[in-house]
């Protein structure tokens, strides 16, 4: 799973999340600092972040709203993956479902992020960029995460590369959310290494975008018949 156990994870974090220390409320501080490091250094350790959410789940008095939203935004950058949902499951029901009279700032932020994540998971990339621009709250929510937009963009490009051999420039431009042809061309040629030909973008062949024919055959080996053979041996003996 993307962003589950990154190489960057230091030993002292590993010690916390794999032992009983993960239940110690005092560990929250360390995990929070680690989250800040992830946000600044552009890597993602959802496993450790879930340990932090778990501490919040057990000790609601320790909750820091901006930590929760940062964890969610980090998890979102791993799309498509269950990471965002796995984090949501650890929030308290009242934090993630706006009730009739419980519209705290956190609830509102969480439901905004959920909508945003649903667009990424649903591959509605053009709509994602439009939503992101539609409200200043999104800028606030993603401000701590260095390179948020770039990470999303690179991820979208990867996914396009897995499905397309050739894509209309206009479509890709709207999906990358750069809002200008020049920047889009630059991103496509320099970051992705693809070729722009007229109004089409050529994507080199890879294992995913070929759609090769395959035949699934059954592997048969002697072990599968072991019981039958044994039985026939015993009965004839």
């Amino acid at each position, binding site marked *: 799973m993307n962003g589950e156990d990154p190489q960057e994870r230091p030993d002292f974090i590993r010690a916390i999340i794999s032992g009983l220390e993960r239940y110690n409320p005092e560990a929250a501080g360390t995990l929070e600092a680690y989250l800040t490091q992830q946000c600044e250094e552009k890597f993602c350790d959802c496993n450790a972040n*879930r340990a932090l959410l778990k501490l919040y789940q*057990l000790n609601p008095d320790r909750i820091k709203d901006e930590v929760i939203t940062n964890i969610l935004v980090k998890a979102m950058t791993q799309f498509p993956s269950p990471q965002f949902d796995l984090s949501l*499951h650890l929030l308290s*029901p009242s934090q993630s479902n706006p009730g009739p009279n*419980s519209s705290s700032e956190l609830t509102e932020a969480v439901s905004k992020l959920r909508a945003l994540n649903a667009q990424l998971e649903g*591959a509605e990339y053009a709509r994602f960029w439009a939503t992101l621009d539609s409200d200043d709250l999104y800028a606030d929510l993603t401000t701590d995460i260095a390179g948020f937009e770039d990470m999303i963009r690179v991820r979208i490009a990867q996914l396009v590369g897995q499905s397309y051999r050739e894509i209309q420039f206009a479509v890709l431009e709207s999906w990358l959310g750069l809002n200008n042809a020049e920047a889009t061309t630059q991103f496509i040629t320099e970051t992705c290494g693809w070729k722009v030909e007229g109004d089409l973008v050529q994507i080199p062949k890879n294992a995913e975008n070929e759609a*090769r*024919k*395959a035949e*699934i055959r059954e592997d048969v080996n002697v072990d599968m018949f072991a019981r039958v053979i044994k039985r026939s041996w015993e009965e004839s003996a």
Partner: protein
Amino acid sequence: MSAFQQAQAPARAIDPDSDVEEEALVNDYKEQVQYEEDDAESTQLSLAAQTDDIQSRLAAAAQPLDYSAGLEVKFSSYDSYCSLFHFILNSEGPVDLEPPSYYWAWDVIDEFIYQFNSFSSYRARIARQGNNEEEITMLRENPNTWGCYSVLNVLYSLIQKSQITEQLAAMKRNEDPAAVAGEYGSKNLYKMLGYFSIIGLLRVHTLLGDFSLALKTLDDIELNKKAMFARVMAAHFTTYYYVGFSYMMMRRYADAIRMFSHILVYVSRTKNFQKNAQYDSITKKNDQMYALIAICVAFQPTRLDDTIHTALREKYGDQLLKLQRGGPEALPIYEELFRTACPKFISPVPPNFDEPEANIDPIEHHLSVFMDEVKTNMFNPTIKSYLRLYTTMDLKKLAGFLEVKPEELRGWLMVNKQRTKQLRWTDGGLLEGELVNVSDLDYALQGDLIHISEAKVGRKLVDWYLRNLSRTYA
């Protein structure tokens, strides 16, 4: 039983008419019905008075609580578990006791968690209803009774004391577990309690919505027929239910189906030997697992074992059909099946008694997160059913058939393509897995032209052959 008799005998010899026996009975009775804020000291006292009949307390700990038991009984049941586990864990050196039966340890842990689960649900319900002042006051004053930290503490302590993780690791390496078992772990009582506490943790983590941690706790247990839990049917069954459910929540549908299929086939094969109360309790979970299999198969079409396929069609035929058709009409079916088949999720902290409406049932929370994923995928069946018919297809033309905008269809195609890759377990811990292509349908786009290829599945004959062969023998 012998320990019980030995302890009784000298008491009688000293003074047959003493009040000791009656006193013990009274104490016992007190503990069952009386609610008192036991501090550690009084627990110790009542414990001392009862060491002679520890065997009957061991047996009592495995007994289910009466369904209609009131709040006081629930409180005192918690106290007796605390004092029992305190006795087992904190006596000087290991307690010298044999478990009453090979399934006793499972029953104790099972009942302990069941009571924790139902207490938490009950407390949340009282808070939501907000009209039973008496019970609200009582619950408010005792926030730590059946507290999540104490339950986790018991389970982790039993695991640590018994060195069960070390023992299981040794077994995996084909070494003698006794060499690493230590003073406590070499005793059957500790070993069994430790072992089933691991499965207990799997369950508690799932109930709290921590699905990956749930699977992580089983790292040391190998899921196969030789596993210790397989000897106790209920344990076997429960383990697969929770593992399968956690896999499903992690979007690992192939693995979830593998878990549910394994245990459902096993149950259907042993059905005839199990006509007792234990089997009745299994029937309900059995149906729940069929509901979950229906959900998983809808996410990821899979050829099921024949027995399971037939039973699934019998139990949830209509629902399965609607799930497999997809689209918005399938959403209420997903909700219905999820609700009937999910564990009774709980919140680890006391509810908000001051604002009854602020307490949302955790089931609703987990359901709504799950439904996000369902909604993302709801057009996959539609897409697949069309793509199967062609080898190349124009995107705009297909959008016309489906009556959607081309941009919308582009999204659906991307989603469906992305979901064909799934982590699937091959070896090692339950969380391990390889990213594999789980669909027989693959496609790639060249501009608006969709190139489609369908993997040909050769006939699978081994199963058929074996089944018929065994029939000729029978």
